[in-house]
């Protein structure tokens, strides 16, 4: 398994990580090694096996439709890096 710099850059954008060239240089062989290791699963015959996404066999966990108190706005915004007392503020969604 080899990962090109371009592959990694695409994944980094998808993951919204900004990685320096140095970080990418370190990561590339590490990720390649890990991927090579996990690819041993390919040897295993899993045809007809149901995927297991949950560790617990529960279904239909449902709550009644009864509104409860929300957080006061000050509490909701208290951790926001930037807000104007009403809304969270971020750089424009559509760019400039």
């Amino acid at each position: 398994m080899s990962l090109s710099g371009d592959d990694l850059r695409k994944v980094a954008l998808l993951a919204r990580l900004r990685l320096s060239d140095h970080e990418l240089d370190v990561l590339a062989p590490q990720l390649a090694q890990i991927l090579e290791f996990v690819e041993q699963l390919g040897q295993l015959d899993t045809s007809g096996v149901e995927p297991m996404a949950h560790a617990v066999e529960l279904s239909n966990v449902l709550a009644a439709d009864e509104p409860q108190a929300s957080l006061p706005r000050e509490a909701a915004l208290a951790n926001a890096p930037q807000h104007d007392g009403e809304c969270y503020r971020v750089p424009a969604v559509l760019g400039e």
Partner: protein
Amino acid sequence: MSSLTDQTASELLERMRSGDVSAEQIAAACLDRIARHDPAVGAFLRVGGDEALAAAADVDRRRRGGQAVGLLGGLPVAVKDLICVRGQVTTCGSRMLANFVPPYDATVVERLRAADGVLLGKTNLDEFGMGGSTENSAFHPTRNPWDLERIPGGSSGGAAACVAARMAPLSLGTDTGGSIRQPSALCGVVGLKPTYGRVSRFGLVAFASSLDQIGPLARTAEDAALLLEAIAGHDPRDSTSAPAPVPPYSQTVRQPLSGLRLGRVREHYGEGLDEQLAAATEQALDVYRSLGAQIRDVSLPHSRYAIATYYIIAPCEASSNLARYDGAHYGHRTDERQMRADLRQEQRRLEAAGDTAGVDQLDTPLVRLYRQSRAEGFGAEVKRRIMLGTYALSAGYYDAYYLKALKTRRLIRGDYDQAFAEVDLIVGPCTPTAAFPLGAKLNDPLAMYLGDLYTVGTNLAGLAGISIPCGATREGWPIGLHLQAPAFEEDRLLRAAYMFQQVTAWHQRRPDLP
């Protein structure tokens, strides 16, 4: 006062009940020990001294006034900093959340308070629980109380170290692939990972949601039983919480199990297992034989795929769970002015060079805000796993990695089901080696991952496991015995552990701290 911190939670509880000692005295003794030794160990990220003393005094007042007191009766409990405590900074060992103050308590914290546990402080961890050495904390590493040049294990390294160093009689850790059991083994304490669904995950900051569980760390099985009883049980706020009744572990733990059948996993004695640990495990089996247990060999044929399965599923879930840390609503945000200035400069440079494709590909300010904030907020291991998970889930790879891993997970669970048809518990080593020196595996992530060999299967299958002290290396470093039980059979684990501790003294060894 040091004699107080030497005692187990159950002993302290008994003394408080008899009026011999107060909760406030115990809290003060713990705080005193933390003040003396934690600068060297680094088990805690924050210590809530005044709040702890006040909470303890409140329990004392109620006890003196003849009022009902909860199960934990004023015992101090340290909480891993991956668990939310209302109004207190909860960092997850990450720079990303260095200033995050949750407006709510995790369910386990609510239950601790309801049981009159005294919150002592927040313990150190590998960032978001990702790691096996607690070196991935953004703040400082934790050191093994048995040898300060060695790692305490992880990710609940602070949780295990503070119990081993007698700074707290009880602590809460979290276990996604061994993060309670492995540091417990390396620090010589008892650590239990409950069945998936046994303890509410509400307020536990998610690493890999289908694997994460909160569990107790203590010095004895009795103490672990006490803390588990206080936190276990159904929670309507966690959809994956099991609506199963909780046995009174603290009462049943002293009842010995008769006719116990233990399964010795053939696959666990292969390559990579340190011979001292193999020998200690075999001796532990002899102890059980002497207690009347039968030992049988069992096979978990797919256990050799457990690490690979785990290191697909956990990073995939993590890449999604950690997407929320983008600097928009809470958590670290990069310096926005600087970020905009940098972007403008990059744009000018690209324009000057006539690189129109480069200009086109340049991040928008919002995308750059996300990327820069995350780059600054996350450490190397977290980034590595986010990259791994993002890649494995991306178009074209899902079937080969994630889906394949989910199917292998089913096979691994099937192995356990078969084995538990023949035996009551599965027993083996908890780790392949004892504690290794700080920095030894920092640049070799795969080697670090392989250390989870014996523990990840429990999480993948959703079962319960416990590590108990069962020996020491020639150098004196602790060795842990790993017991695994079928789903919701924590009671069986605790009783088997108690039986072992009744006839051995490994759990009474204590590290010499400077």
